[in-house]
C-alpha cells in the first residue's frame, strides 16, 4: 500500500515536472509568436510528435525565427522544412534515431547528402550513436569536401570504432589545417587515416597531401 502510494506520488511529480517544462516552453512560444504563427507551429509540433519526430528542435527553430525577427510565414516555413528533413533523416537512420541524430541528419540532407549515405553511416555505427559522425560529416561537406569522398571516410572511421572524442578531435584538427591554408579534402584524409590507424590515441600529425 505504502509502496504504491510512493510510486504514484513519484509518478505524479514527474508528470507535473514534465508538464511544467512543456508548459514553460509553450509559454515562451506564446510570448514570442503572434497567434496565427503560434497555431501553425503548434500544429506542426503535434504532427511531429505523432510521427515520432523530436518536437524540441522544431520549437527551438520557431524561437530562433522569432529571435531573429523573421516574419510569421517565414517561421512556419522554416519549422516545416526542418520537420520534413528530420522526418527523412529519421527514416534513414532508423526508428530509434535520437533527437540529436535527427537534427544532424536533417542538416546533412540540407547540404545535399542523400538518405542512402545516412543509412550507410547508421549501418557502420551499429548500435552506437551517429551524432558525432554526422556532425563531422556535415563539417567536411560544408568545407567543400564532396560527399563522395567524405561519406566513405566517415564510414571507415565508424567501422574503426572512432569515438565521439575522436570525431571532435578530427574536426578540430581539420579546421586548424584548413585555417593554415591546407586543402580540406587532403586534411580530412590525413586526419581520418590517423584516427583509423591509431584509434583514440591520435599522436601523429601527418601532413596532408596537397
Amino acid at each position, binding site marked *: 500500500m505504502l509502496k504504491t502510494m510512493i510510486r504514484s506520488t513519484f509518478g505524479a511529480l514527474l508528470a507535473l515536472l514534465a508538464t511544467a517544462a512543456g508548459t514553460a516552453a509553450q509559454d*515562451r512560444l506564446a510570448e514570442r509568436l503572434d497567434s496565427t504563427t503560434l497555431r501553425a507551429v503548434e500544429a506542426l509540433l503535434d504532427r511531429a510528435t505523432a510521427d515520432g519526430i523530436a518536437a524540441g*528542435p522544431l520549437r*527551438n*527553430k520557431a*524561437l*530562433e*525565427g*522569432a*529571435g*531573429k525577427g*523573421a516574419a510569421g510565414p*517565414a*517561421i512556419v*516555413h*522554416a*519549422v516545416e*522544412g*526542418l520537420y520534413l528533413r528530420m522526418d527523412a533523416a529519421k527514416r534513414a537512420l532508423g526508428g530509434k534515431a535520437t*533527437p*540529436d541524430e535527427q*537534427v*544532424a541528419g536533417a*542538416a546533412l540532407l*540540407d*547540404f545535399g547528402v542523400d538518405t542512402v549515405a545516412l543509412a550507410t553511416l547508421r549501418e557502420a555505427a551499429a548500435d552506437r550513436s551517429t*551524432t*558525432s559522425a554526422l*556532425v563531422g560529416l*556535415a*563539417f567536411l*561537406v*560544408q568545407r567543400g569536401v564532396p560527399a563522395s569522398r567524405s561519406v566513405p571516410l566517415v564510414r571507415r572511421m565508424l567501422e574503426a570504432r572512432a569515438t*565521439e*572524442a575522436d570525431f*571532435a578531435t578530427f*574536426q*578540430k584538427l581539420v*579546421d586548424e589545417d584548413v*585555417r593554415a591554408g591546407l586543402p580540406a579534402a587532403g586534411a580530412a584524409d590525413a586526419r581520418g587515416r590517423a584516427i583509423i590507424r591509431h584509434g583514440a590515441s591520435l599522436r601523429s600529425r601527418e601532413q596532408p597531401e596537397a
Partner: protein
Amino acid sequence: MNHSTSHGARTERGRMRAPYSRTARRAMLAASLGLYAGPAALAAQFAQPERPTLRDPLAAFLRDARLEMVPTFGMAAGNTEFALSGILSLQSDLRRDTRWTARMAALAVRSPAHTFAGAEIALAGAHRHGPLQSRLEAAVHAGTGSGASPAFSITAASGAGNVTLQFRSTWLQAAPTRNANHPAAPGGADVADPLNEDPFQSRYDEAELTALHRFGRFEASGNAGLRFGEAGESSPPWAALQLAAPVRGNLDVYVAGGSRPERPEIGQRAGSFVMLGLRLRPARSASLGGIAAPAPLPPPEPFATYRLREDAWVLAIHAPDARLVEIASDFTDWESVPLEAAPGEHGIWRETFVIRPGLHHVAIRIDGGEWRAPPGLPAVSDGFGGEVGLLELR
C-alpha cells in the same frame, strides 16, 4: 619593490637612534608588498582566462602556484639601499569571477642605516562583477631586526580596468614612529628619536589610487595616496611612478621614483626615492613541490568551448576588432546574449552558460551585423536567410 631609508632616522648626529623601529620595518614591508596590491596585481587577478576548475578544492588552490624574486637597489633621501624579496602566491578559481589568493612573502633590507628581515602572510579574495573588480585582503606582518614587531592589516580595493582605489587599515603592536621631518617636530635632524617618546595611535588608515598602462612591451604604473586622521598629520600625501620592461624570459627590469608615505610597521619615512629593480619569476607550479602544472594556454582559437563545471560551459570567441559580440542559441532560448570582453586578454570575448550535453544550434553576431555560425563549426542554413553552427558538447 621599493625600500627606502631616510636621513630622518638619524636623530642624533653620527648615531642612529632606532632608525627603523619595529613599526618602521613593518611600514617598509607593507610598502614593498603594497606594490603588489596595486593595479597590476589586481588586474593580474583576472588576467588569466578562466580554466576548467578541479573538483578538489585543495588541488584547485594549488593548481597555479607562482614564485617571484625581486631584488632592488636605489637611493632614498640620500641613502643607498639594497633589498631582496621573495613572494610565493597560490591562487584558485573555485568559482567563476571569484579568485582566492594566498601569499607568503619574505623581505630582507640592508642599508648603511639598518638591516631588516621580515615576512608576511596574506589571504585575499577577488571578485569580478561586470567591468568592476573588487578585492579584500587580510595580512599579518612580522620581522626581525631592530624594531621588528607584528602588525595586521586589512585592505579593501575596487577598480575598473587598470585603475584601482584601495583603503587599508593597519594595526601595529608597537607604537609607530613619528616622522622626524614633521613640521611640528622641533629641531629638524637633531630632534630626539620620537619612538616611545611620542607614540600615537597604533593604527593608521590610508587610501591609495593606482593606475597601470601598457604600451608595447613596457608597463607604466603610478600610485598616489594619503593618510587619514591623526596619522595623516604625520605623513604627507605621496605619489610615485614605475616603469617596467621585459628583459628576457622570466626577467623584467623596472625603475621607480617619487615620494613615499610613512609606513610605521616597516619604518618607511615619508620622502623621495629612486629605485632600480629586477623581477624574476624562476618557478611556476611544476617546480614547486610537485604541484601539477596547468597546461600552457593555446593561442586564441576563433571559437572555443570548455567545461567549467558539470553543466556549465564557457564559450569564447576571438574577435579583436569587435566592440560588441553577441551569441544566440537554443540554450539562450534564442535571445541574444552579449559576451564579456575578457580582461587582460585582447580580443577574447566569453561567457558561461548552462548547457545540456548534446547537439545545439549556435549563432554569433559581431557589432550588430548578420547572425552567422561561429568559426570552426559546421554552418547550416537557418531557414531565415542566414546560418547557424552545429555545436556538439559531451
